[in-house]
């Protein structure tokens, strides 16, 4: 399941709803991304997340389909927020559930790694010198590449 939204989410409620009634699930893995109060050595007051409506949902759905092709999952959820967020705010939630922990943990890591290099989101940080667009990290590309199968 994919959700792109401005509003915050409740991690506990989301996991409870995702797994409710499915007693095949033995393990749930989750990743939560938060806004930090510094970036590149400088302090940031807030950030604004912009995205490409339409393509965002399409890419997230593709990424989720790929995860479910690679691992046997009982449930999966990706929530990504957009708009203005402050330090400590939740940005993204990835949850995967499976009979055993291996599939849940590995697919959760796969989803966040892929999302970071494929989903069309951009962060504009508010710094003392004004707005600054975050540059893509080489480490994110490398993290995605380790999942390549071809």
């Amino acid at each position, binding site marked *: 399941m994919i959700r792109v939204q401005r509003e915050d989410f409740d991690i506990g409620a989301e996991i409870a709803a995702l797994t409710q009634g499915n007693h095949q699930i033995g393990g749930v893995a989750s990743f939560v*991304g938060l806004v930090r109060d510094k970036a590149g050595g400088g302090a940031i007051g807030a950030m604004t*997340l*912009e*995205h*490409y409506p*339409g*393509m965002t949902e*399409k890419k997230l759905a593709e990424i989720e389909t790929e995860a479910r092709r690679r691992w046997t999952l009982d449930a999966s959820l990706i929530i*990504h927020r957009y708009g203005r967020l402050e330090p400590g705010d939740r*940005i*993204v939630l990835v949850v995967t559930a499976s009979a055993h922990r291996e599939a849940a943990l590995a697919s959760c890591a796969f989803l*966040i790694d892929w*999302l*970071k*290099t*494929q*989903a*069309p*989101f*951009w*962060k*504009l940080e508010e710094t003392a010198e004004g707005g600054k*667009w*975050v*540059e*893509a990290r080489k480490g*994110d590309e490398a993290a995605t590449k380790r999942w390549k199968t071809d």
Partner: protein
Amino acid sequence: MRILYFAWLRGKVGTAEENVTLPPGVGDVAALLGWLRTRGPRFAEALEDLSVVRVAVNQEYVKPSHPIRDGDEIALFPPVTGG
């Protein structure tokens, strides 16, 4: 043809979206980028370093050789930074 610009590319070209009529001979993404650069200093500067420009056609990432035609939705944006 509809062209969308995101993040700092939007700021540099000065618009989020525009409708353009392609000149004859512009048949793929590489040619489109080359033509856009000739449309003024804002475009020339925004598209100066293509290693930091990603292109999507109809919401799919494409390579410079990808064909384009009227009716396509083209998007230009920097490498993504979500998550």
